């Protein structure tokens, strides 16, 4: 089976245009990052210099992995059921597009802006810490392994959320229900990162590598599994 990059690009571009002009999506994309940005910022700014050393053991930055876990889920959960509700899915499925191409286009359209937002928020946070936090906070917080974890886990978590969101979207008949389920289904990774952040799970390089490998495998399987679950006939006729 050959994948047409032109068709994938067509879906990707169309989705981005739609997202950009959809106020509820733009608002949703702004709210989640804010929630995950404000809490660490407050902690960092109220922390006195004397307590800065404590930060090295708190894994504060891991909170921000909530952004790539939740934002793409919200976008992806809209992608199929949103089209179905608008009545635009049938004309698209009537073209020569393969389901793998359609899903890849939709997945990229959720993945790329989510990862961009997550990295941008993260960069903004680091800049704020570097520029405005009390002396001693920045060196305690900005450590290589945390930054590397953020860079590596952001796309891995986003991809997982995307496939989960699309799978839910393809089985739902209501946009809001799909988005709520999508966000709910993306909570387990947030829970794991929270447990690590609270030191309930001891973070080690081995654990990080294991989680990354598991996510990589799940992301790879996600496309194929979601494609297999995508039923053209059920989506068109609404039959179970």
């Amino acid at each position, binding site marked *: 089976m050959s994948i047409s990059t032109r068709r994938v690009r*067509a879906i990707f571009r169309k989705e981005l*245009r739609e997202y950009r002009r959809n106020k509820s999506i733009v608002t949703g994309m702004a709210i989640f990052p804010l929630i995950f940005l404000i809490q660490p910022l407050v902690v960092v700014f109220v922390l006195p210099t004397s307590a800065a050393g404590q930060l090295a053991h708190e894994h504060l930055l891991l909170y921000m992995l909530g952004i790539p876990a939740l934002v793409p889920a919200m976008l992806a959960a809209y992608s199929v059921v949103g089209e179905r509700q*608008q009545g635009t899915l049938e004309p698209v499925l009537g*073209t020569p597009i393969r389901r793998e191409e359609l899903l890849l286009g939709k997945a990229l359209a959720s993945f790329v802006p989510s990862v961009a937002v997550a990295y941008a928020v993260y960069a903004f946070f680091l800049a704020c810490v570097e520029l405005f936090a009390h002396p001693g906070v920045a060196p305690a917080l900005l450590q290589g392994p945390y930054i590397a974890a953020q860079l590596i886990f952001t796309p891995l978590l986003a991809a997982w959320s995307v496939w989960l969101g699309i799978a839910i979207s393809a089985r739902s008949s209501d946009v809001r229900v799909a988005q709520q389920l999508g966000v709910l289904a993306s909570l387990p990774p947030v829970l794991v990162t929270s447990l690590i952040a609270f030191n309930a799970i001891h973070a080690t390089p081995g654990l990080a590598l294991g989680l990354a490998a598991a996510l990589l495998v799940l992301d790879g399987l996600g496309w194929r599994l979601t494609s297999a679950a995508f039923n*053209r*006939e059920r989506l068109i006729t609404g*039959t179970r």
Partner: protein
Amino acid sequence: MDSQEGGQRSAAALHVHGLTKRFGTRVAFEDVSFEIGYGEVFGFLGPNGAGKTTTVRTLGTLIAPTSGSATVAGIPLTPENGVEIRRRISIMPESPGLYLRLSVAENLQCFADLYEVPDPGDRIERALRAVSLAGRAHDACGALSKGLRQRVALARALLSDPDVLFLDEPTSGLDPVAARDVHELIDTLRRSGVTIFLTTHRLEEAERLCDRVAILNTTLRTIGRPDELRDRLFARALTVRTLAPLPDPGSVFGGLAAVDGWHQDGPASYLLAVSDSTIAAPAATRALVAAGAGVLSIGESRHSLEDVYLELINQDTEASRR
């Protein structure tokens, strides 16, 4: 067009044999067979729930048939051939299904890319000109009237230069002027040789536009040219109107050549069942003049496609009551 390449084009644009679709125990359509030639405009009529849209979706590879076989644009209808078939056809569903936040041009650009049409800019311009929307390319689809959206959906269906164009209720909900514009476009497409499969509720539309029609009511009730269907279902008749009631119509119409029977249709109006109106009409005229009747008109009684449709659907309703 692609289907003409390599001399692979078959005689029929659509060949359907014993096609059936069931959803669980519910039958959408059953044992449907017909053939449509290239360049033909074929009307597919039937009441709500008759299975028209499901037939279009099945032939458009959007849903799989339960049994039966078909070839679409010369390609056998199988799951493996879905992409190839969809490359050669276009479906315009009843609801235009446009991205309302996108402009007309952005909508068409997306579909031009999905069909991988060469030189999409030129193709989009031509499609917009064909539906008289060249000046509205940059308008948001959400800001267009229903009629204009329907035209954009038609432009979208034309982008890929399809061999077979499925139009599902293309004038549904349109005002008469917008509907007339769509009719003119279908006429233009017919002249350019596109095969059109038209489902509609508007019988006068089918009568005006279609070379042949089929009436579906879960099963295929009849198929043929509109005039053929009339002749098949209704006896030929002459309507005679006189200035005053005839004192003894039996003596005037009885025994006339090619007249099989007659009955009074109104105070001074008579309906003659005829086997050949070209013989019966002059004979009736002569008999009326000989009887001293003041003849207002003698005309062939015309049954419309609507009469045919209603007769068949009423037969089904009666049968289901028994």
